[in-house]
């Protein structure tokens, strides 16, 4: 139980750091990297939290998280393809 709690807190801090990275990024890609990390850690967090609350049968939500995070990433990359011609100089913020 203690291990689960410690893991939960560790994942929470990772999420906080990733959020900080996404908020305060040098380049657009750093922002996306932070968001991707946030998404994968969220899936893990839900899995751990299910065990912590003693009801591990809600893991479906973690699967959805992993899936949606991936689709979000692909959408972002696609978005770059569309707008790459418009603003080449905007990589640096």
């Amino acid at each position, binding site marked *: 139980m203690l291990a689960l709690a410690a893991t939960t807190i560790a994942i929470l801090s990772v999420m906080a750091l990733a959020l900080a990275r996404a908020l305060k990024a040098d380049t657009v890609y750093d922002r996306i990297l932070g968001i991707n990390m946030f998404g994968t850690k969220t899936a893990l967090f839900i899995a751990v939290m299910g065990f912590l*609350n003693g*009801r591990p*049968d*809600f893991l479906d939500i973690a699967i959805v998280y992993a899936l949606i995070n991936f689709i979000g990433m692909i959408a972002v990359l696609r978005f770059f393809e569309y707008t790459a011609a418009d603003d080449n100089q905007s990589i640096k913020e």
Partner: protein
Amino acid sequence: MSFIVDYYNYWIVVFLMMAGFYIVISATNLVKKVVGLNIFQTSVFMMYITMGKVSGGSAPIVAEGITSYSNPLPHVLILTAIVVGVATTAVGLALIVRIKRAYGTVEENEFEDKEDLI
């Protein structure tokens, strides 16, 4: 401490609601306004779900050995509200796309001199 735990959720809900409200009334970009509306909307969802929680309760899916469940009614209301919210957001975004095509801009304060374009 218990005072904070008792009301913390509501305070955050109010903060988010006001953040969304602020974006809606201060931003000039229509896409950002839609994001603001969505934040406002999520704060309302959060309010309902907060009210439905019972301390020591569990998710309202029957399982052996669990006696106390959280209130399922707010969950039902919000579940459908989320889907409808996204559907209406999509209509709003579609309108923005059309506005961009008709006026060439999505900045609210740039519309004024283009009224005869419609």
